[in-house]
């Protein structure tokens, strides 16, 4: 099994550093190095790095590129930026999904607008060819280039409150890079010849695309670089991060961090069912009155017709006991109403009474001992509201959990960059 998995360019580094490896999306990836818990906590209190080069990137360019993405992507690229719903513009990126005609998720993605007719679509591990193929199948004109960069791009994330301080040490002109760089914006390019490549360079001259995004809910960046610079970039970040106690983190911490941040895992929390009635309505182009969409796109009619679709809802338990999948969701009368999609442990949160506090919450009561909570997503028939209690049942145990509006409080992802340096 493991021998059939692909390896990222950091595979040797991971195994040399004691990583516990496992297959994820067809790649042999680190689950954790010495402790998934410590890695999870490091991202909340200091900083952590993640090898995310198993993820796939597809470039879409040409005069009709915008039309093609508007047809295939759920978010409205003409109305997605800020409160005023301005169009996407170069240097900004946006989250959404690619659906089939049945309104089911093929994969989720972040689309980066690099230049006027030049987009970068970042999808999940192993999905590059599928999304490139999906886009090619929907292109009406010849003047669109679709390039699948799977395995030909280095990607790593640095996440946590010290992330900017670490990057400050290794960027050639950090002040210029950090100026006007809000959440979901980016600068630079991973190719020497790419547009804007001079905007972000390391002190050794290597160009990177630096994006204020991530998958942890915490402050930080995603870094894209040419494959030949990738291992060096990883080691440079780790060395620069030593004084901040930055550590390398595996996919277990990534999963528990994203679950607490109410972010979906593609093919687990979103998948072959209609992409509606979930905690991510911002990924859909709802009109102001929420009755329709601001554009038409592949799958839109199926979504509008999905009147009996299930509800996907975040939950958190009362302690850190989990259920193993498959697991059912029972209502207070013991009736089965759905299934558990994700059940992870956010080690940085705990309940004191009903409210959830994080180890970073400034208002945690003194007698509140934070030990971690099980959390994740359920998919249920009835429209439960936050605060309602359900029971999760697997082959072994039943645990009571609460439907939540949000899980881990005091997340740092959106904090202004200038406050973090």
């Amino acid at each position, binding site marked *: 099994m493991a021998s059939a998995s692909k390896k990222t360019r950091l595979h040797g580094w991971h195994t040399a550093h004691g990583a*516990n*490896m496992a297959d994820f999306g067809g790649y042999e990836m680190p689950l954790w190095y010495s402790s998934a818990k410590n890695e999870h906590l490091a991202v909340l209190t200091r900083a952590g790095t993640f090898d995310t080069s198993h993820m796939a990137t597809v470039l879409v360019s040409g005069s009709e590129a915008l039309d093609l993405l508007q047809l295939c992507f759920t978010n409205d690229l003409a109305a997605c930026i800020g409160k005023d719903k301005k169009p996407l513009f170069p240097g900004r990126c946006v989250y959404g999904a690619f659906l089939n005609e049945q309104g089911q998720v093929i994969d989720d993605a972040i689309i980066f607008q690099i230049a006027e007719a030049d987009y970068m679509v970042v999808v999940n591990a192993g999905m590059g060819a599928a999304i490139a193929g999906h886009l090619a199948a929907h292109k009406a004109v010849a003047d669109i280039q679709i390039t699948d960069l799977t395995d030909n791009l280095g990607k790593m994330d640095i996440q946590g409150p010290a992330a900017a301080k670490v990057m400050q040490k290794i960027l050639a002109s950090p002040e210029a890079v950090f100026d006007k760089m809000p959440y979901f914006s980016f600068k630079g390019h991973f190719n020497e010849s790419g547009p804007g490549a001079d905007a972000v360079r390391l002190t050794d001259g290597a160009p990177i695309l630096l994006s204020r995004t991530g998958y942890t809910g915490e402050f930080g960046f995603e870094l894209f670089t040419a494959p030949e610079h990738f291992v060096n970039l990883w080691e440079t970040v780790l060395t620069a991060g030593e004084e901040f106690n930055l550590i390398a983190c595996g996919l277990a911490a990534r999963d528990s961090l994203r679950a607490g941040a109410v972010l979906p895992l593609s093919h687990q929390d979103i998948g072959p069912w209609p992409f509606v009635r979930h905690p991510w309505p911002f990924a859909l182009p709802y009109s102001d009155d929420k009755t329709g969409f601001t554009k038409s796109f592949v799958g839109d009619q199926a979504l509008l017709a999905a009147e009996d679709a299930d509800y996907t809802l975040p939950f958190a338990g009362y302690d*850190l*006991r989990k259920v193993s999948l498959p697991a059912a969701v029972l209502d207070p009368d013991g009736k089965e109403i759905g299934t558990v999609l994700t059940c992870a442990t956010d080690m940085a949160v705990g309940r004191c009474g009903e409210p959830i506090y994080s180890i970073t919450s400034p208002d945690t009561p003194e007698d509140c001992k934070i*030990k971690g909570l099980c959390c994740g997503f359920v998919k249920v028939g009835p429209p439960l509201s936050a605060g309602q209690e359900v029971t999760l049942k697997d082959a072994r*145990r039943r645990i009571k959990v609460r439907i939540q509006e949000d899980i881990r409080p005091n997340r740092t992802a959106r904090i202004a960059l200038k406050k973090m340096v």
Partner: protein
Amino acid sequence: MAKEISELTLQDDVRYAEDHEWAKKEGDTIKIGISDYAQDQLGDIVFVELPEVDSDLKKGDEFGTVESTKAVSELYMPLSGKVVAVNEALPDDPEQVNKDPYGGGWMIEIEPSDPAEFDAMMDKDAYLEMLKGL
């Protein structure tokens, strides 16, 4: 796996089961826990569920669960007996199972009902051979 087999701590004075529990004779009773290999595979142990004292359990019965950040795993009796004590420190300090799997991370103490079951468990060398084959 994180630890190479050569890096594992495998004590000489305990016997091992195929499910990676260990058993150690202490006078008339036997202490039971999980091996260094098992804790290393599980990752951070965050919760341990143990049986009631006085439970009568047969070899192969589930006696509790260990929950790591990765998964929930059953614990199986490596031999039959009556539970005379459980490690009361584990609920508050489950990390002991990671830090000291053969010491502070012990789980239950039993009065064995069939001493031959202990003698049939693997010694260190046999367990090591089994791990090499995994």
